[in-house]
């Protein structure tokens, strides 16, 4: 690969900050997620020229602009298939996907289960605020039943989906939940997710102070997973994600299994670097 960056001085969290100023409302939970991401990137010394942050559309999906790496804000709901394309094309890249609950669980919902079952080596951080932020406060697939918004003036008729259960049921190889109000813990989870060889799903509870301010509702419920919890036990993970009380955070589940790129690719080289000689005339001769 061209242009080695080895000799550069160690990067600090602030070095991952781009010149673009976040557009989020004051007090937005996504600031905590962004801070955690800067911290995690610095801790892992990610090379900005070899890191791609991909997103969909939404307030949370603005995040790639605020990070000084390669980035791609795609279309609403399409973060995962784009991120997968990037990763297959060049397995040497660190690919981090981000977005909101509407982006990931509603319009992009179909992609989640399929991304999970393929297990590409990417990390997906969903900033879950249980509401549509960018479009100004409509109900989201994680909003509570009966949720009153401008689009559901008599209360939402739909029960919320359970993203962690969804990911686990689809066969996710890494599932964690964090809280934007605890960026240190979230940083640990992001680092663990990026280091995990496979699809790392991180639900980052990230309140929206403007349309559904859940800081005070959630903070007292946030608690660590119980003492002696075993993240290798999928049944135990399911019993935690289906709990009615409290909002447990931490690493729920981790398993190592073959990744998508190890299946679709013979080598881990970037596709554009593959040196295999291809002679189209030899291929064409087969049709004689």
């Amino acid at each position, binding site marked *: 690969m061209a242009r080695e960056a080895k000799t550069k001085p160690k990067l600090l969290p602030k070095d991952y900050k781009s010149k673009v100023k976040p557009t989020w409302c004051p007090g937005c939970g996504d600031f905590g997620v962004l801070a955690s991401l800067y911290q995690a990137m610095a801790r892992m010394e990610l090379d900005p020229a070899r890191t791609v942050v991909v997103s969909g559309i939404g307030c949370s999906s603005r995040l*790639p602009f605020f990070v000084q790496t390669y980035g791609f*804000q795609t279309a609403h709901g399409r973060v995962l298939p784009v991120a997968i394309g990037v990763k297959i*094309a060049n397995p040497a890249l660190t690919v981090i996907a981000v977005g909101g609950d509407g982006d990931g669980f509603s319009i992009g919902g179909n992609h989640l289960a*399929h991304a999970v079952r393929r297990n590409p080596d990417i990390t997906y951080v969903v900033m879950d605020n249980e509401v549509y932020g960018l479009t100004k406060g409509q109900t989201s697939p994680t909003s509570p039943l009966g949720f009153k918004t401008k689009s559901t003036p008599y209360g939402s008729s739909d029960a919320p989906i359970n993203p962690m259960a969804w990911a686990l049921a689809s066969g996710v190889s890494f599932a964690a939940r964090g809280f934007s109000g605890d960026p240190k813990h979230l940083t640990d989870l992001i680092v663990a997710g990026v280091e995990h060889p496979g699809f790392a799903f991180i639900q980052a509870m990230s309140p929206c102070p403007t349309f559904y301010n859940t800081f005070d509702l959630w903070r007292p419920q946030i608690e660590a997973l119980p003492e002696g919890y075993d993240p290798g036990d999928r049944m135990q993970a399911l019993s935690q994600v289906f709990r009615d009380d409290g909002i447990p955070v931490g690493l729920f589940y981790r398993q190592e299994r073959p990744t998508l790129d190890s299946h679709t690719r*013979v080598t881990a080289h970037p596709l*554009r670097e593959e040196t295999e000689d291809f002679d189209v005339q030899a*291929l064409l001769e087969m049709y*004689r």
Partner: protein
Amino acid sequence: MIVDTLLVRLGGESGIDNAISAGDVLTLSVARSGYHVHTFRTYPAEIKGGPVMFQLRAGVQPVPSLGDKLDVLLAFNEEAWQLHGEALRPDGVLIFDPGEHDAPREFGGTAYGVPLDRLSKDLNLRKGKNLIALGALSALFGFDFQPIQATVKDKFGRKRPEFVESNRIALMAGFEWAKENIQDEVPFRLAAPDSTHDPELVMSGNQAIVAGALAAGCRYFAGYPITPASDILEEMAKRLPPIGGASFQTEDEIAAIASVVGASIAGVKAMTATSGPGFSLMQEMLGLATMAEVPVVVVNSMRAGPSTGMPTKMEQADLNIALYGGHGEAPRIVLAARSVEDSFYQAMHAFYLSETFQMPVILLTDQSLSHRTATLPMPDPYRVPVVERLRPTAEDAGGYQRYRLTESGVSPMGIPGFDATPFTATGLEHDEYGAPNYTPAMHSAQLDKRGHKFERAAEVLCDLEYPLGCHAYGAPEAEAEVGVLAWGSTAGVVREAVEEMAAEGLPVAALVPAVINPLPAERIMEFAGHLRAIIVPEVNRTGQFAAWVKANTELHLISLNKYGGLPFTPAEIRAKVMEFLVAKPQEPAAELQPTEEVAHG
């Protein structure tokens, strides 16, 4: 009578008679004997049950079209006769199975009853009917038996060695039965092939697209199964991994094009292929590729629509969506393949254009061309330049502007892992750096940038030469009085009809561009010259291409529309041209009346 072309159709029941696989074997063997071939097939959408047909046209000279009336119909059952009898020329040859039905009384040509079913039962070869039929065909028409046997071996030998022997027995049984029982000379026999040249390649349109894409450097493919594009996915899945590429079946077409856009952002030449319903789903991501300036190639093999339509029938009705499918002003380069050979070149061409101008390129083909197998000379990949997108240089490091406003509109594209020029691509309107920007000045400037690229493309494309540019057929344009302007797979029938008429001394010429957008309007105007009438045949109801040409040239055009799911035949083109050649001076009535001509197919 010795003839230069022979048109044979096999009609049977899907899943029972194996007419298609018999047709494939016959095609390859005839081609290996040195003939040129052109096939056409229709299947029911169902896997089992329903009528299928396979048609092979073999010729001593190249055969650009599927032809008109059948010379030979091989009907495996009575339904096949009922469906295809009308297509058989009155003095043609019918081969039927007397175990299925009697020789049709109303048919005045030559009918041979070959007990296909009984022979297969006698031999205890339940699935052998098709090869028994091939054996009988070759005995009757003097097809070279050797290549048929060799082809059967090549086709089945590796996977099912037991098939080779049983197929040989079936072939021989049909051959010998016909030799013994049918003594009369068939009314026509194909002239001997030109043995001075090597046998040509036999490929389908879709296989040619794959080969062209690989030749252009495509190393990533993603797709979702859909007729008639699935075999592009299947072929890519087979061919890419061994040469260091990757192919991937996604959960839907949105994911397919999304991952192609992602792969291209990571620096790989990438492609997807689909048909109408999937192409509709891809529209939003095509807009993203335009906005973020990501090179991608999308193949749309058109089938009859709207909605699920007729998956196994052709139509040329997706021109409008190819041109205008997205929201906002997102100019797209649209190419249309004209033949199997052209599918190879246009696939290469699509990558050349998408890499050069960093934008999506749509390559249109259709069911009849995708699944058509035909002979073609070995393509020359050096006829189309293989290029890569413009990349940042040392000058760009520090303050890199991915979307710098350049005169040509093209700006260097950094690749993660290869260029130390991080930037964020986006579907939002953005400034030179890629940061969101909604100011009037920046939106205008970036729209201009994307527009200039397209206008540059038009300049590059205006004087393309063979094989990429317009194809012209028939009489010298200066002498022509009636012109035919066509696009896509209709090229073949138009070529055949027009060349034949020109050879008879009729003043007819044809022009078929490959690049539909930007349209080579100047070249079309030059062609129009002093023509008395310009006929635009297309397989759709509303004349999408004619409308597009009118919008770009203000020419007066006469639409000839056919929309039954089947391609035109040369006779239909000829008939329309004749209307304008025979008399009707100055003001042809057809120009005053609605100009739509309907030929149901």
